[in-house]
């Protein structure tokens, strides 16, 4: 599992992206953000979900 990219427990992502992560079973703290200053976008979350599935990782 990737190292948490969240500093001080903060994840920089919109509430909708955070909810999407929960829906897809992705730990958003481990997602690399492609938005401004590393903000995590919906697309990042979806990509992480697909990568997770492809890699056979089971989402929590």
């Amino acid at each position, binding site marked *: 599992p990737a190292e948490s990219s969240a*500093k*001080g*427990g*903060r*994840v*920089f*992502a*919109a*509430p909708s992206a*955070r*909810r999407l992560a*929960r*829906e897809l079973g992705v730990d958003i703290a481990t997602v690399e953000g492609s*938005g*401004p*200053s*590393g*903000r*995590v976008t919906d697309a990042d979350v979806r990509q992480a979900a697909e990568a997770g599935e492809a890699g056979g990782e089971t989402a929590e």
Partner: protein
Amino acid sequence: MVVGDISTGTEVLVIGAGPGGYVAAIRAAQKGLDTTLVEKDAYGGTCLNHGCIPSKAYITGANLAYDAGNAEEMGIHADPAVDMAAMREWKDGVVDQLTGGVEKLCKANGVNLVKGTASFKDESSVRVAHGGEGQGSETIEFEHCIIATGSRPMQIPGFEFADDEVLSSRDALGLEYVPNRLVVVGAGYIGMELSTVFAKLGADVTVVEMLDDVLPGYEDDVARVVKKRAESLGIDFHFGEGASGWEDNGDAITVTTETEDGEESSYVADDVLVAVGRSPVTDTLGLENAGLETDERGFIETDEQARTAVEGIFAVGDVAGEPMLAHKGSTEGIVAAEVIAGEPAALDYQAIPAAVFTDPEIGTVGMTEAEAEEMGFTPVVGQFPFNASGRAMTTGHTDGFVRIVADEESGFVLGGQIVGPEASELVAEVALAIEMGATLEDLAATVHTHPTLAESVMEAAENAMGQAIHTLNR
């Protein structure tokens, strides 16, 4: 009318119809769950009946009367007379309309309403005692329960709310007169809001506080703005003094205080308002029957889904811990309901804003500079004083400032502290910025209407970036 102990069942049982409970019940019903809401007293809980709403109503009234009576500089000459009984009636009307609205919304969403006091029989049922003679009780079995029984004002030794002269915040919000002299014990937000109201309505207010400043929990420079203004309204502060007792002198009362070193002082007054904090209502619920425990302060511990340690039982609002704020409770209520409905909901907000409706108001959200440092950020801070805001000047209220705290490296907005006019409203934009992962640049590049107080948020962000227009940059 139900007499005797009959038994019914429900998918979701919510105990308490304050902003935690009624919101949870409405959302649960919206999600198609069979939902029952038990309330022993009035819909809307503390907030609508004895807290947020009545206090804010009086604050409006007191501000209007005070401002109009002190606007010679603007060319307005008035000497407003306040009829406290009538102001109370207006306040009651507002409360009634809102609590009636809550009841209607519950019904319209299909929530079953039960009047009575609930206590746990075991981890899947409660007994509801219908108040009043011959009204009996009923047992309600539940699949899921949301505890939202709120909080009550703390008493201190020697001061019983049962006595006429000793006022809880609830009593103070029900007065039909303005006391000539009022001693307020506690300079937290409730004490400060009510002190300001009564001072503006003409009372001589003395505030006694054990700690050494007003509004503990707020930064010094934020609290100072409110304290200075309170002093200019004639409020007399005594810090480092704990209220130790009072006695009735017939015409008046004398409140005695003591410092840590045992030094005594006494203050003559008509009434004494005790506003030293609130404790969760968890001792009258039979929690032990459900296998639930509380921490030493009486709070029920919950997780990110508002779940307690007992399967199927949730707790939201003031019983679930600090901050004891209405919107925190409502947020938890929504999450609890959605979790029960099987949705991937969680308390994953980045920040809960908080407001104090003093003069001026305070609105804060997210991290202070010190907190940001503690969390491992290198904070950059920008500030804008309201006395440089055109809009503030045109309202005649220029005390205070907006401060924005951000992460230097990424520019992400981490927090905001606002003290000044409409601070409670202005903080909403900062809260959205924090939730969205907005940067200082995002705040600065969002066009803000002129002339508004909200421009100050943009200016503070620009100041943090070293490119403010209307202040000199650091």
